[in-house]
């Protein structure tokens, strides 16, 4: 009987999750909020280049490729297959992220396989991962940045060469012109180079640094774009979400305090699953005497996993060991620090999704190391350690499977937005006068309403809503 290699088994496991998640994503209408306006703009734009150049001069952000991508996908829809192209692209990105994640693990042994299986549920179960699936504008650019960061770590772990250096520079340029968090590609490349993963050579790092400087000159010099201000977005703070005017009122004179809060909680969110989007939801649930089990599930699993990483890191420091486990830790800490710093303006789980992906890579290193170390323990201790890891993997699996409930719930919401859209827009005098735009809206609505999506709104059964609360 042919034996399945640990690497093949890992890819097979990842394929099961990727396929299920991709189906969930495909079986979801294009969303209305934050998305429909972009599609209507894409329809009006004569070309992707025009979309790109127009976006260069607009507002405080430099996200020209974000707009141009929407236009490219719109044109690829051939005036008919909008849902298939936009949602298909989202699903393809998701599959790419999972494949790149597994590839970055370099699974060779059974121990690697066990650790990779654990890391996979950490990746999918972490709340930052959900932000890459639930929404799209109409492309989920946070997911694109995660893919770019994972491409970079794979390039860094490759054999290298001129092509790798050029690919890294192209990845950086694409990511940086899509979202600000695209700058993390540089952090990943430099972090990997420092720890000894030098597939991207010193020459490549210099090229990436030149691209970073060019970005700074373009953004702050040539285009004179500033930085986001307090009143740009709503944001979580302690136990509530604050609207922009509330943020201005409360922190207008002491913005640095609000910025510091955002940086710190963005980091703790990845490490401890609390707060989420700036709000301490478990603490709030406890104060409101709500059911705690489901609120504590993410916190307990994250705290235990982070504690495991800290223990392994301290042990390595004591033994002065430095192998791939410590390399994963170092790159994760670098990405987390910069990702949290980028989140200074407002907190959103999606923004720290690259740090979330690298947290899962670090979890792989920690579990792998524990499995190797436990080989020298007494049988009883080894058994206890294995059972504890197994229980922790089960907690993360519960979090991962909950993504299905969240995505079905979100699909129902998107569909309902389409149901009332023409009537709402006509009442608000927003219905476009352009016949082509009208036709596009009606076509998108027809596709959305035509989907038979399971009805999560009746509240029956109750347990999914209890187990995976919002």
């Amino acid at each position, binding site marked *: 009987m042919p034996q399945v290699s640990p690497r093949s088994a890992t890819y097979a496991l990842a394929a099961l999750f990727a396929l299920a998640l991709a189906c969930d994503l495909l079986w979801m209408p294009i969303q209305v909020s934050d998305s429909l306006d972009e599609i209507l703009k894409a329809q009006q734009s004569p070309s992707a280049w025009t979309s790109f150049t127009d976006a260069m001069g607009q507002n405080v952000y430099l996200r020209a490729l974000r707009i141009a991508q929407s236009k490219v996908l719109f044109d690829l829809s051939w005036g008919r297959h909008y849902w298939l192209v936009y949602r298909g692209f989202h699903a393809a990105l998701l599959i790419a992220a999972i494949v790149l994640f597994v590839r970055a693990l370099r699974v060779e042994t059974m121990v690697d*396989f066990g650790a990779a299986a654990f890391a996979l549920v950490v990746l999918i179960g972490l709340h930052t991962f959900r932000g890459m699936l639930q929404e799209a504008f109409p492309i989920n650019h946070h997911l694109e940045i995660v893919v770019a960061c994972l491409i970079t770590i794979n390039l860094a772990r490759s054999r290298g060469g001129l092509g790798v250096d050029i690919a890294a520079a192209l990845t950086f340029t694409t990511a940086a012109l899509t979202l600000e968090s695209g700058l993390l590609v540089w952090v990943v490349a430099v972090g990997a180079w420092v720890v000894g993963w030098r597939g991207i050579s010193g020459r490549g790092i210099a090229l990436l640094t030149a691209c970073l400087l060019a970005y700074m000159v373009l953004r702050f010099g040539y285009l004179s774009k500033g930085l986001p201000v307090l009143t740009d977005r709503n944001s979580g703070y302690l136990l509530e979400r604050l609207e922009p005017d509330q943020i201005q009122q409360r922190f207008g004179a002491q913005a640095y305090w609000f910025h510091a809060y955002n940086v710190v909680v963005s980091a703790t969110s990845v490490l401890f699953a609390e707060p989420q989007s700036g709000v301490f939801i478990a603490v709030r649930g406890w104060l409101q005497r709500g059911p705690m089990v489901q609120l504590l599930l993410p916190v307990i699993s994250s705290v235990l996993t982070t504690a495991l990483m800290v223990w392994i890191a301290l042990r390595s420091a004591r033994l002065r060991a430095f192998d791939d486990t410590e390399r994963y830790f170092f790159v994760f800490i670098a990405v987390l620090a910069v990702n949290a710093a980028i989140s200074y303006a407002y907190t959103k789980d999606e923004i720290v999704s690259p740090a979330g992906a690298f947290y899962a890579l670090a979890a792989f290193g920690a579990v792998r190391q524990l499995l190797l170390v436990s080989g020298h323990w007494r*049988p009883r201790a080894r058994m206890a350690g*294995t059972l504890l890891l197994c229980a922790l993997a089960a907690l993360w699996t519960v979090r991962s499977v909950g993504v299905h409930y969240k995505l079905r719930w979100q699909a129902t919401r998107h569909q309902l937005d389409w149901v009332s859209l023409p009537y709402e827009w006509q009442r608000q005098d927003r219905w476009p006068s352009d016949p082509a735009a009208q036709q596009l809206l009606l076509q998108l609505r027809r596709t959305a309403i035509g989907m*038979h*999506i399971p009805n999560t709104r009746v509240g*029956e059964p109750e347990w999914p809503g209890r187990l995976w609360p919002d």
Partner: protein
Amino acid sequence: MARLVDRNRASVLIALPTFLGAVLYLIVVAAEIAGGHPIWYLEARNLSEAVALRDGAAAVRLAEQKQDVNATGEVRARLILDDTAMLTPIEAAAGARDEDIVQLLFDLGASPDAAVWNRAFCISDATRVREILRAHRPPGAVEDCAEP
């Protein structure tokens, strides 16, 4: 015991929850694509049930198939009332206490007579639902919810 927990066996054991989770997830998604979600399987049999289930998309689909938005339909027990009941869509939507669905029915052309309007008004105690109903009050309808 030492053999039971050698590294390879421990690795397989740790991978087990992930494997089970992935298989379960895939089965649920496959069942959904095949047309029967194992968790959320309630489907509307008529327009009144669609709004009772707060399923706006199903309501629109049925209305587009020329189902009368004013006709009564059978609504299964415990969706709105304890027993199976014959309700108009407006009554069912008001019973579901969902103002968006009530508004949707008016947008789809619902025009309840005074008796239906009164029953819908009294079946729901949701403020927003009652506001929307008041905005579409037919001639002769009164807000009288006193028990006979």
